[in-house]
């Protein structure tokens, strides 16, 4: 990872068309580039702009290779952006902070304010479930072990995993690992929760149960949630607002109802290619990038090729 520059206050001006709720995360002109095997520079995020408001669940979706995971990695401070800003404002902050310009130790203070559920659960395999949840509490607080034990019990109850507290991660199913990961993500009572493909690899019933759990936790803990997924059913169940990414750019952002209308619309009635493509994607008919490098859509390519 590249060295981080020294921190400085960020700018949290609401984007165009923003509503009156408090902005928790503001992403502006975010750019991230990587080098491929031949040493050529590839721009994965190319000027991404969006805001995340207090208490909402925003779902970031898009086809394979659209930059969803890179965006999440930038949001959690795993990648240092090549351009743009990611400003956070939590309840105890006097001013927003731009994590793209923060030193690692400053970033760690911000990281304590958010929790992350990884795609695989990412539980520490050498520790029991209870130890996994206790770890952030043990490392970041000086509270008595008996208090930590009570918090662990509470967190396990929240995800309905109390009976598994002494099990090792290898003894848990995929769905149980995700629930346990969620319990660990909420251990420090975060204000923002990030979810990386929460329903990936799960059967529809378990996936629906995880979605319900996420929604309950959001209400119960009043957290702001950012969910990265390409599972459409799950996305429509949990989202308040949705962001559609394509080739590293925001193709569309809006409330769930707008995306539902787009999904349910008759493709013939849609006026532009972008809407028709998103209609296809939201109905599960398209997986990869929605446009090619020249910005040409599948429809345009079909027309060109006859």
């Amino acid at each position, binding site marked *: 990872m590249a060295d981080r520059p020294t921190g400085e206050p960020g700018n949290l001006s609401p984007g165009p068309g923003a509503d009156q709720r408090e902005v928790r995360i503001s992403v502006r002109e975010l750019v991230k580039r990587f080098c491929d095997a031949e040493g050529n520079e590839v721009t994965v995020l190319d000027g991404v702009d969006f805001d995340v408001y207090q208490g909402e669940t925003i779902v970031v979706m898009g086809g394979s290779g659209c930059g969803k995971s890179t965006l999440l990695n930038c949001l959690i401070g795993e990648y240092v952006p090549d351009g743009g800003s990611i400003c956070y404002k939590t309840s105890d902050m006097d001013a927003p902070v731009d994590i793209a310009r923060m030193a690692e130790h400053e970033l760690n203070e911000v*990281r304590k304010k958010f929790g992350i559920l*990884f795609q695989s659960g990412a539980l520490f395999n050498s520790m029991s479930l209870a130890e996994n949840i206790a770890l952030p509490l043990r490392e970041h607080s000086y509270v008595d072990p008996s208090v930590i034990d009570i918090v662990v019990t509470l967190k396990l109850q929240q995800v309905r995993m109390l009976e598994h507290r002494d099990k090792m991660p290898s003894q848990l199913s995929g769905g149980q690992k995700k629930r346990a990961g969620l319990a660990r993500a909420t251990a420090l009572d975060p204000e923002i929760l990030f979810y990386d493909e929460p329903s990936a690899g799960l059967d529809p019933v378990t996936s629906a149960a995880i979605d319900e759990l996420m929604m309950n936790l959001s209400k119960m803990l009043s957290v702001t949630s950012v969910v990265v997924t390409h599972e459409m059913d799950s996305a429509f169940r949990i989202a308040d607002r949705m962001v559609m990414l394509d080739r590293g750019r925001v193709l569309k952002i809006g409330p769930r109802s707008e995306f539902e209308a787009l999904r349910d619309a008759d493709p013939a009635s849609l006026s532009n290619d972008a809407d028709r493509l998103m209609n296809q994607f939201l109905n599960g008919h398209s997986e990869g990038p929605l446009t090619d490098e020249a910005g040409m859509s599948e429809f345009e390519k079909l027309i060109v090729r006859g």
Partner: protein
Amino acid sequence: MSLTSPGSEPVVGGRSRQWVERVGQGVLDAGRFVRNSIGQFGGLSYLLADAVRWTLRGLFVPKVKLGRRSVAAQMVRVGVRAIPIICLVQVFIGVILALSMAPTLEMYGQVDTVAVIVGIAVFRELGPLISAIVLSGFAGASIAAEIGSMVEAEEIKALRAHALNPIHFLVVPRYLATVLMLTGLAVIADVMGVGGGMFTAVYVLGVDPTTYLQLTQDALTNKDFLTGLIKAAVFGLLIAMLACYEGLNVSGGAEGVGRATTGTVVKSIVALIATDCIFTVIFYVYEI
């Protein structure tokens, strides 16, 4: 770009051009190897500096925990479980040394001095070196595989996401445990090596046990013992750093973990012998 067509002689320049291209490719490969080696050395140095910085912070900054429980757990894993293997190997080393030197010493009627040779060789060189080589396969490979698997399972990412530094949390306990335990293991190795030599001298070569112990005691100085311990500590640091570095840089799934494990053992053995050579030269030049 090659100016040849498949199955034919080069269009321009013929064989001499092919030869020049091969030489050019060889130079490029050598350049890449040097660049990668410098990169790895830089990465290792950075890892070491960071690990030492976190250790000092753990010792002197009240808010930073050193993780004593974790160090103790690693000491058991790295060192305690290696004791039987190291004892066995060192006894064999003592036996081999005694039997190898015996015919030559018998020629000069100096078979008793096998005690001196075994003592000095084990205390100064073979105790720490053989223990380190055993530990590189025993603990180094295990550390690299463990950390590599954690990288693949996103556990390292999860640590960072919870504001926990992987170097502080994973590397520091492992390197401290390896350094402390290898130093301790070297002492055990010294005793077992001398024991193996003595067993052979007494029961095969007919040396009196009291004479053997007296000669060993007379031949060895504190300097011999301490130089062995210094070597062992440095070897422990080398093994742990190489293992952690290889583990943290794993990519490519299970295959990558396998590569890191093999890489750790091979690089550790080369690094251990090279470092031992440097130590021996320094000790020889400065008469330590």
